[in-house]
């Protein structure tokens, strides 16, 4: 009665009997592979990664870690249960393959035996609906608490040099600008000073930042200090940076922002309160135009001729490259009210609209260029030892130390080659200015003197 | 007599379908024809289209330049009320056309069909007129966000009405060729469904856009 019907046999089932044995042998091989992967996994995790999200150095990132660690554990348990169940069920209820010469029935079943035809189990269904619901509800309460805590940007002011300090973080293609408001943005006409690519904060203190953008979306992210916050043109979003350690923390723009998105990085540097005071005092210093005979006078002239139409050096540059040097202060930069409310179209105010119109309308302020450890979206290091020195609390000593002259020269020689941008056609990023080597030399000397 | 074509309904079978044959009740599981069901399903989807456009308008209606005229100054409520009323009436006439067709009163049906199309055309004409007035007053498509989203929303609706008019007119032509009879009254019913939908959408737009410009 159990007639073999050849045409019901699975293609290749018979021949695969031997193959099955091969698979058994393969099992050991798979276990080995898994072991190798596990080892690699552990070593890989331990390797030094400056953007590591699991290595918090600030209060906020710590809070996030305290949320995610137990969740990873729960997910791990569910993972083990489900994978275990799949493997166990597959092993336990697998049917015997028909032996050589044995007749198979209906393409593989050795006999007509059926398991019990269970259609369902109401209580079980309710159980595995309610169970995860309760679990998720518990996680939800836990998680919403953490979220509200994270989004609380109104922490009480700390004992600090500038307890009210806030920073407007402006993203543009493809670098960051930081506008410092030492007494807070409320009521401020203009920032106290402006810097680029490296946000410097006093250690321990909660610094409220507001992210926004001049062109497309960007996202501000210093993983070791906090999660990320998008920079949205036309909006400002509050966020907090706080560091428990002195050091330099890497960041990366994480919202796709066009061509050079990969090259749009940043650092947060945390200093002691005293160092921070020193640093702000220095940043607020405007420069005097150099006189003939001063060191770097030629450099400054080349700069005014070639660069000042985009870049600002407080006290030195003016928008008008043909005329005499006028004092140009922060007026170039809009104040926060404009960033908060662009409905009247003021975004373009203070923009450079010269021949090589920049889409974002801004270039990094270079007044204290040499105090920054990196440049051009922090993609290039100005000082090779920056990381070690900053981590050791010697960030302020960087200016005047050994710097990477070659890279800076290359940048001035042809910046679109060093960092992809869309010059000249699309007017984004710094153009190739076709400078002579002599001018480049002068400029590098000048730039490195801007401490 | 069983009709095979009803068993494997195709859109094109509408012309040959006999609606008085219910012997094969499994033909359409729900007892509604595929065509009609299809129209209902499509209209469900269209709701979301207008939903998206209306939300966009709601978000943007106040975003105008400091010197631009806003919705309050722009709209001529009495004028639009009249044209809305005209469109509303066309829902009535299309119903009259369908009932006339059911009674196999082709002549009346034709009259109501034509008046529905004309009422629709008056509405579209009114919209075009309104657009030109706005344009002359300085609200172009690209002037500001209000203009952009207003013209897009009402323009999409206008296109819907126009498509409806084309469908009504093709029914009218079919009736001239003797192809529209009580036998295939469903075709008209389906177009009627569409027409009512476009009307209802207009009521929503009129209320939201014109009556509550705040």
């Amino acid at each position, binding site marked *: 009665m159990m007639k073999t019907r050849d045409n*019901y046999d699975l*293609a*290749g089932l018979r021949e695969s009997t031997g193959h099955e044995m091969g698979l058994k042998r393969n099992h050991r091989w798979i276990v080995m592979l898994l072991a190798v*992967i596990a080892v690699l*996994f552990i070593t*890989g*995790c331990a*390797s*030094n990664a400056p953007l*590591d*999200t699991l290595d918090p150095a600030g209060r906020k990132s710590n809070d*996030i870690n305290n*949320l995610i660690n137990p*969740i*990873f554990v729960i997910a791990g348990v569910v*993972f083990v249960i*489900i994978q275990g169940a799949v493997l166990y069920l597959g092993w336990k209820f697998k049917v015997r393959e028909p032996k050589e010469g044995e007749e198979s029935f*209906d*393409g593989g*079943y050795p006999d007509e035996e059926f*398991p019990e035809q269970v*259609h*369902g*189990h109401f209580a079980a269904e309710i159980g*595995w609906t309610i169970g*995860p619901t309760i679990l*998720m509800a518990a996680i939800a309460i836990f*998680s919403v608490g*953490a*979220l509200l805590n994270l989004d609380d940007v109104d922490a009480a002011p700390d004992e600090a040099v500038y307890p009210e300090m806030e920073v407007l973080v402006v993203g543009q293609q493809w670098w960051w600008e930081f506008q410092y408001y030492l007494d807070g943005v409320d009521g401020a006409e203009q920032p106290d000073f402006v810097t680029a690519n490296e946000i410097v904060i006093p250690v321990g203190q909660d610094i409220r930042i507001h992210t926004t953008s001049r062109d497309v*979306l960007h996202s501000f992210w210093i993983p070791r200090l906090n*999660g990320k916050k998008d920079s*949205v043109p036309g*909006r400002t979003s509050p966020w907090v940076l706080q560091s428990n350690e002195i050091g330099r923390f890497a960041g990366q*723009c*994480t919202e*796709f922002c*066009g*061509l050079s*998105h*990969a090259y749009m990085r940043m650092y947060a540097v945390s200093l002691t309160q005293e160092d921070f005071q020193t640093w702000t005092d220095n940043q607020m210093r405007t420069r005097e135009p150099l006189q003939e005979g001063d060191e770097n006078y030629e450099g400054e002239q080349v700069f005014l001729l070639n660069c000042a139409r985009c870049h600002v050096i407080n006290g030195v540059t003016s928008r008008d490259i043909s005329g005499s040097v006028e004092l140009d202060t922060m007026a170039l930069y809009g104040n926060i009210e404009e960033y908060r409310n*662009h409905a009247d179209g003021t975004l373009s105010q203070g923009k450079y609209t010269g021949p090589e119109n920049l889409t974002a309308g801004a270039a990094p302020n270079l007044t204290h260029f040499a105090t920054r450890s990196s440049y051009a979206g922090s993609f290039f290091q100005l000082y090779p030892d920056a990381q070690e020195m900053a981590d050791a609390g010697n960030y302020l000593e960087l200016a005047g130390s050994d710097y990477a002259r070659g890279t800076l020269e290359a940048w001035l020689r042809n910046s679109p080659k060093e960092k992809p941008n869309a010059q000249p056609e699309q007017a984004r990023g710094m153009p190739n200015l076709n400078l002579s080597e002599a001018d480049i030399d002068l400029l590098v000397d000048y730039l490195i003197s801007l401490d | *007599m069983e*009709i095979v074509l009803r*068993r494997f309904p*195709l859109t094109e079978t509408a012309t*040959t379908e006999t609606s008085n044959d219910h012997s094969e009740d*499994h033909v*359409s599981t729900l007892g509604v024809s*595929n065509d009609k069901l299809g129209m209902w*399903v499509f209209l469900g*989807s269209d709701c979301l*289209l207008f939903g998206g456009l209306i939300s*966009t308008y709601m*978000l*943007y209606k106040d975003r105008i*330049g400091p010197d631009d005229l806003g919705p309050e100054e722009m709209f001529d409520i009495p004028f639009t009320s009249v044209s809305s009323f005209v469109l509303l009436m066309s829902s009535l006439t299309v119903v009259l056309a369908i009932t006339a067709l059911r009674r196999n009163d082709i002549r009346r049906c034709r009259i109501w069909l034509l008046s529905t199309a004309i009422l629709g055309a008056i509405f579209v004409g009114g919209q075009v007129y309104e657009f030109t007035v706005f344009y002359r007053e300085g609200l172009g498509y690209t002037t*500001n*966000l209000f203009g*952009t989203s207003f013209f897009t929303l009402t323009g999409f609706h206008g296109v819907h009405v126009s498509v409806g008019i084309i469908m009504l007119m093709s029914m009218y032509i079919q009736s001239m060729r003797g192809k529209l009879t009580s036998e295939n009254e469903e075709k008209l019913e389906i177009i009627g469904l569409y027409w009512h939908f476009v009307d209802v959408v207009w009521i929503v737009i009129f209320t939201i856009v014109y009556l509550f410009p705040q």
Partner: protein
Amino acid sequence: MAVVEEEQAPLELESGEDQITERPLGAFTRPGGGGGWRSWLFTVDHKKIGIMYGAAGLLFFIIGGIYALFMRLQLARPNNSILSAETYNQVFTMHGVVMIFLAAIPLGAAFSNYLIPLQIGARDVAFPRLNAFSFWVFLGGGLFLLTSMFIGGWWENAPDGGWFAYSPNTGVLFSPSKGIDFFALGLQITGIASLVGAINLIVTVLNMRSPGMTLMKMPVLTWMLFIVQLLLLFAMPVISVALFLLTFDRLFDANFFNVAQGADPLLWQHLFWIFGHPEVYILILPSFGVISEIIPTFSRKPIFGYPFMIFSGIAIGFMGWGVWAHHMFASGIGPVAVAAFSVSTMFIAVPTGVKILNWLATMWGGRIRFTTPMLYATSVVAMFTIGGLSGVTHSLAAADTQQTDTYYIVAHFHYVIFGGIILGFFGGFYFWWPKMFGYFLSEKIGKSSFWVMVIGFNLTFGPMHILGLQGMSRRIQTYSEGQGFDLWNLVATIGAFLIAVATAMFIANVFISWRAHRAGKTPAPGPDPWDARSLEWMTASPVPEHNFDETIEVERQDEFWHRKWGKDETGRVVRRATAEEVAHDGSNTNVHLPSPSYWPIVAALGLPIIGYGLIYNLWLCVVGGLFVLGGLYGWVFEPVDDPNADGHHDHEAHGTSEETGAEEVDGNSSEEVSVD
């Protein structure tokens, strides 16, 4: 051993089917079938259309995979320069767009088209010509998108805004090439295809079920596909609106995303994700359905908790509409909104978990045959869960601020997409291949390619979890040494090539098995090679053009299985009939079928032409418009039937030579002709 007879539907042929034709209208005759390519171009047969969807989807999957391989090559080493930043941005955009819109959705549509009518016992879909239309529109739109790679220069005009194309980066100012225009118009065209297809299949499921096939007797696969169509129905108009706005901005200077005018870039994000999140369930539910057919079949048990499987599917479909902003946790939408969307997202784990556990319960106590389809199906249960769990870790909004836009997200969605969808679909291919083409795919190649694929897949995307948590941002063209990303990127690249090997093995399998079949080396599958449960197995393989010889009266869920198997007095399952005895042999020639039609493809062709017109020259729009209008005109006035139908419907190409097509009809008669 007495067989307890459950009530059985009579197996008698239906008779007295009448036929109406119309007098042919001049030029508007319908194509008369015939073999070869014409039988595919003008077909309105849901099975052929399903197969074409599948073939096109696979082709696009390979194209999208080749993009992926280039990305992986670029990322294998730090500071690599295989792709420039510009090209890389285009490549990952094309990869995402092609994979989601041209591979995953169409593969789902392939299963929907082929299987829904069969599983509900219908002869075809509700609107066969509309079905052909949606396929050609999809193909036209897809090819339109791909031509952006060549037109106006090699990789000059490919879209570069990422698959979700966030504004304002997609405005003309920031993306001046024509790429985004191709993106917006191409997706609008394929969107029309999805929308039309959804309407068609919804009506089919609601209205064309065979007698007795109530909603709660439909196979789980049909149910999931039905939910997918509803999701498409409501999601497609939303993305259409978004794409309209974008197109108007780019082509007609509208202001929707013009920040200088006060526009809000978040509008795009909301519109996109209101579509985009339901979209991910549009992608996954077909695969859930597929494995819900495979697992019971090879466990030799009915699906566990059928109603819960259905309701959890419905719940996923519903909840999917209320979670879209979990893609915007970092956008600055405010803590209240973030909290609400975070919580709603978490609870999607519940219905999904119900499904996972029901599959496991189906396997529990079964007699499991690990054929290739079953291997794939169980791997879906395992691999999808990994992706689901990382999804839950994203749903905690606070934690997501660290994860969003990193490779941890990339890992999540490839686990759910590749581990959930692609593996499931490959399982489906192996499962239904004998049904569709009348020959088995080799189990030997199948099993080994399965292992290569699963290992390659885990090597590719497993390390991405680590990369993401170590801070590797997505959509970056390169990374530096010293960021700690070197090792795992290399591993991922190796894994990606293993996936390519496995994919190539599948393709090779198709040809090798086909040749073996031709040479008579492998057994014919017969109607029911796997001892399966649903109606598509109740007819010959490959399925004859008319599907079933007679209407099937359905009495219970898994009707076909119950016709084969009964219970004796002790409750033991015993054979009641063999599959051949129950299944139709496809010999009924007395079935009227819709004739092929020229017009769907003509009308569909117009849409890409309009697309090019909008980008390059508005006059082309007129040409395209004429195609569409002409197509519709022909469509409307086409006679109901090919008046010269001589039974030569397009069979040969389908792999069978039986004559089962339309019956003889006197072409000159305008009377109703009775054929009995």
